[in-house]
Each structure stands twice: as C-alpha cells, then as structure tokens.
C-alpha cells in the first residue's frame, strides 16, 4: 500500500505539478515580495542547524589549534630562554670588554699626561689570597725592566709597590697593606704626612697626624715624591674622616684610596722618572 502511495506521488501529473510549483516559488522568491518573512523564520532554524552540524568540527579545530598554539608557545619560550642566556653571556663579555677598554684608555691617558714617567703596562695575573696580606702578581718582571721597589699605578691613583721581581712576573704589595707606607702631602695645604694601609682595601690611615695639622675632610693627598719611589704629585687618596685621638695630641685621619684596589686588570709600573712631577689631569 505504501508503495502504491509512492507510485501515486510519482505520476507524471505529480511531476508536472511539482515542477510548476517550483517555478512559481522561484519566481515569487526572486520578486522578493511574498517570501521574505518565511525565509527569515527559516533562517533562524538553519542557523541553528549549521551551528549544530559544524560544532564538532569547530571544537576539534579549536582544540587542535589550542594544543598547537600551546606547544608553539612552549617551544618559543624555550628558544627565548636560550637566546636570553646567550645574550646574558654575550652582554657580560661586552661589559668585560668595555671595562677593559676603559681601563686601557685610562692607562693610555696616564701615559700621555705623564711624559716624564717611563711606564710598563702590566696585567693582573693573580690575587694572593692570604689573610692580612694585600698582594697581587702581575705579568711583567725583570725581563720587562721591572725591579724591586718600583711604584705601581693605576689610572686613578697609586696602587702599590713591587716587592719581588721575578723574570716574567712580579709580586706587588698594595698601599692598603699594613706593611707599606706612602709619603704624601695634602695638596691644598702642602702638609707632609705618611699614610699606611690597615688591611682594608677601601681604607688608609694617615700616620701621626697632629691635631694642629692643616687637614680637612675631602682633602686630596698626593705622593710627595720623598724616597723617590712614587711619582710626585700623583693622587693617592681623599680624606674621608678626621677624629681626635683619646690622647688629645693626635687625630685619626682615614683616607679612601683613589686607586681601584682589586678592581683593576691593567696597571702601570713606573720603571723610570718616578722623581719627576706628574702633570695635572
């Protein structure tokens, strides 16, 4: 019976009728006058259908892109971390080179402004890590003209003195060592004095300074040239503290060395002309 019904709906008359209805619908729809509202209503239904049909695909696409994006981000992060580490290393190297370059410029400037001094440029080889001893090794020795007792400078101040010169290296005692004394004079007043180290790389002490001595905070102390070791007029340090001793006769004067103790790589050994005066910077 069902088959008969289908046959009934498939007669030539049905075909013709449906085709005519189709053409009528097409014409009516194209005229845009009568089917606008039904089409709008149907659009709501079709939108829902489209959404439902495409939801799994969109979900899968979203999921895969999310996973892919996350993996890409992780890879990118690792790559950036590697680049960052490389950059840090490179940056440190550049900093080191810049510092070394700056030191060399200062050393060159020192040579240029001290034409009477004969200087040998030396590089710091090692720090002698013994408590109470402020000593270093430099890579210049007797073969380079370095001898015991010669002064060692950096670009900003007196650094130390050679105490043992070997063929290719030398041992230098810093002015911050307790065993060394540097004759100085106060640049402002011309007062002579002697400073010694206290074992601290940032501090010197002016020995036996009487309370009547013309010394003030901030005074620049330069080498007096007495003894013929340190070039006259070369900076040594700046007075940072003046306190009267308990005896009331002397005062304790602390001096900050101008040389960058333990922070220099390039130094100058005065191999000649130490008694001449250093030109003002």
């Amino acid at each position, binding site marked *: 019976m069902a088959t008969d019904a289908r046959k009934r709906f*498939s007669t030539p008359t049905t075909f013709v009728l449906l085709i005519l*209805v*189709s053409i009528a*619908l097409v014409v009516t729809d*194209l005229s845009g006058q009568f089917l606008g509202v039904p*089409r709008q209503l149907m659009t709501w*239904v*079709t939108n829902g259908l489209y959404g439902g049909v495409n939801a799994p695909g969109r979900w899968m696409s979203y999921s895969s892109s999310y996973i892919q994006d996350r993996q890409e981000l992780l890879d990118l992060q690792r790559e950036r971390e590697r680049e960052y580490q490389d950059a840090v290393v490179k940056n440190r190297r550049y900093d080191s080179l810049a510092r070394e370059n700056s030191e060399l410029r200062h050393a060159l400037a020192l040579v240029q402004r001290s034409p009477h001094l004969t200087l040998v440029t030396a590089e710091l080889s090692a720090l002698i890590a013994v408590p109470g001893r402020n000593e270093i090794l430099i890579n210049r020795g007797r073969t380079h003209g370095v001898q015991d007792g010669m002064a060692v400078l950096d670009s900003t101040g007196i650094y130390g003195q050679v105490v043992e010169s070997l063929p290719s290296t030398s041992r230098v005692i810093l002015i911050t060592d307790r065993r060394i004394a540097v004759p100085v004079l106060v640049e402002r007043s011309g007062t002579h004095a002697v400073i010694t180290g206290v074992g601290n790389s940032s501090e010197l002490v002016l020995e036996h300074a009487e309370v009547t001595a013309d010394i003030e905070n901030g005074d620049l102390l330069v080498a007096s040239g007495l003894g013929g070791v340190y070039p006259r007029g070369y900076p040594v340090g700046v007075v940072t503290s003046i306190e009267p001793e308990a005896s009331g006769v002397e005062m304790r004067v602390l001096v900050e060395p101008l040389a960058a103790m333990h922070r220099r790589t390039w130094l100058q050994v005065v191999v000649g002309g130490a008694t001449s005066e250093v030109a003002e910077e």
Partner: protein
Amino acid sequence: MKLPRNNVGFSISLVVALVLTMVDLPHFAPDVLTYFTPNFALLVCYYWATNLPTNFSVLVAWLFGFLFDVLYAEPFGLNGLILCVVVLVGLNLPRRSNRPIVGYQLLGLLGVVIFAEIVRLIVMQFVEYPVQGLIVLMPWSIVASLAFWFVVAVILDRWIYVEDTDVSFS
C-alpha cells in the same frame, strides 16, 4: 515486498547528504576544495531513484530539495525543481532485471548534473549579486559530483541497499 532496511538506509543517506552539505571544510583544507564540492543531494536522490524506484517518491525529493533551498539560502523551489527532474530521469532509465544499466545510469547522471548547474546558473542570474562568466557553470562541481558518484554508489550498494524483488516502477 517491503524492505525496512532500504527505508532506513534511504533516510540515513538523505540525512548524511544534508550534513555533508552543511559541514564546513576543515581549517587545514585548502580553500580551492570548495570548488570541488559535490552535489550530495543530487547524487543520493539519483541513486535511490535509479535503484529503488518503487520506494522513492518524487514528493520526498521535492521536499528534500526545498530543505536545501532553505539551507543554501537559494530561491525557494530551485533545488526542488532540480531534484524533481533528477528523479524523473532516474525513474525512467532503461533497466535490466530491475537494476539500471550502468552506461545509461552514468549518462543520465552526467545529464542531470549539467542540468542542475545550468538551472542554478540561470536562476542565480536573477538574484541580487549574480556571478558573471562561464566560471559560474562550476565545471569543477560537475567533475566532483561525477567522481563522487562512485563513492556514493559503492557505499550504498554494498552496505545500504537491499535488492528489491518487487515489480519495477514504470
């Protein structure tokens, strides 16, 4: 003889054709594939019209076409008209032992696919933004429909269709 399996298969195939028409291409698929989209509705209707003429009503084809008009936002009646002609051709193919002759079946398919594209071209010329030029004939869609026919035929023949021993429609 009534064959429920064919009725179920027929319904399922129509729904699948509907879904395949509506579903978007995967995001990784190249856009050029949109030109190769087969006319699934036409293929399914043509298959059932040629292979199961006794169980396939032209009214169902027309309603199915109307549904596609709604989904495609095409002028009402356009796909109904096309599918009516498709079913008309499918039902009237020469047959042997209640099955269509393959040569005629393919020839009929070629005709209805081209007919469908031409009718769509003509009608779409009257819509607001008609596409000019021969490209609107969409030869790639025709090629894709013809190529996909073999997939449809194999799937429906092998897993869906059960041969009807009832008298053939004529």
